[in-house]
């Protein structure tokens, strides 16, 4: 990568070899992630809310473990 593009995420992307040139294991990882993301996008909003609250739980655990104040976790079931 050209040093002048250091820190430029999009320029760095262009320097990445094409997926076909990657080792097959890495290619499988990329393809799996791509497929998972597509599946998540297609989920109903209620399922995405469940995922979001799981993300919030993890974020809270990390914040607490690193001595910071906890973030809120939505109570999406409350009526």
């Amino acid at each position, binding site marked *: 990568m050209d040093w002048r593009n250091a820190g430029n995420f999009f320029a760095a992307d262009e320097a990445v070899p094409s997926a076909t040139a990657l080792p097959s294991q890495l290619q499988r990882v990329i393809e799996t992630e791509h497929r998972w993301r597509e599946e998540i996008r297609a989920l109903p909003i*209620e399922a995405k809310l469940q995922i979001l609250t799981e*993300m919030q739980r993890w974020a809270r655990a990390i914040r607490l473990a690193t001595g910071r104040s906890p973030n*809120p976790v*939505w109570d999406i079931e409350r009526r």
Partner: protein
Amino acid sequence: MEQAIKVIHQLRDEGLIHEYAIGGAAALMFYTEPALTYDVGIFILTENEPSELVSLTPLYEALKAMGYLPRGKQVLIAGVPVQFIVAYNPLVVEAVQQAQVHQLGEMDVRVMTPEHLVAIALQTGRPKDRERVPLLLESGVVVQERLQPILQRHGLEERWQFFRGR
């Protein structure tokens, strides 16, 4: 979540807000994968003229009367922190006016369009907002024919070109 939307509809029915739309990271979920956020951004229109100062006191008083107390910039409504943001410029006003109606359980909920979410992210320019643009673009939900006029109307074409060219 549905309960929070129900409360917002009640505020609208009582005339405390004229119209609303979900924006920010919470709106993304309706179009693409979830992004970590801790509150629901509710952008509101009031009856005031755009040049007038808007007080949210009546809104907060009504919420307090319902038992929902403010916590810093947010109000915890039925387990969900909600942040009320008065539509602060012509782009955000348009985004609220032209919001799409989505279904959340039994509720109809107004959500900013993906094109307006992209335009607002470009306008605010914060890193966390800019990160949302690729998520929307990758999902294929942004219609160029709808995005371009919005960018033109609000003087964001240059920022868009810059973003695309990076």
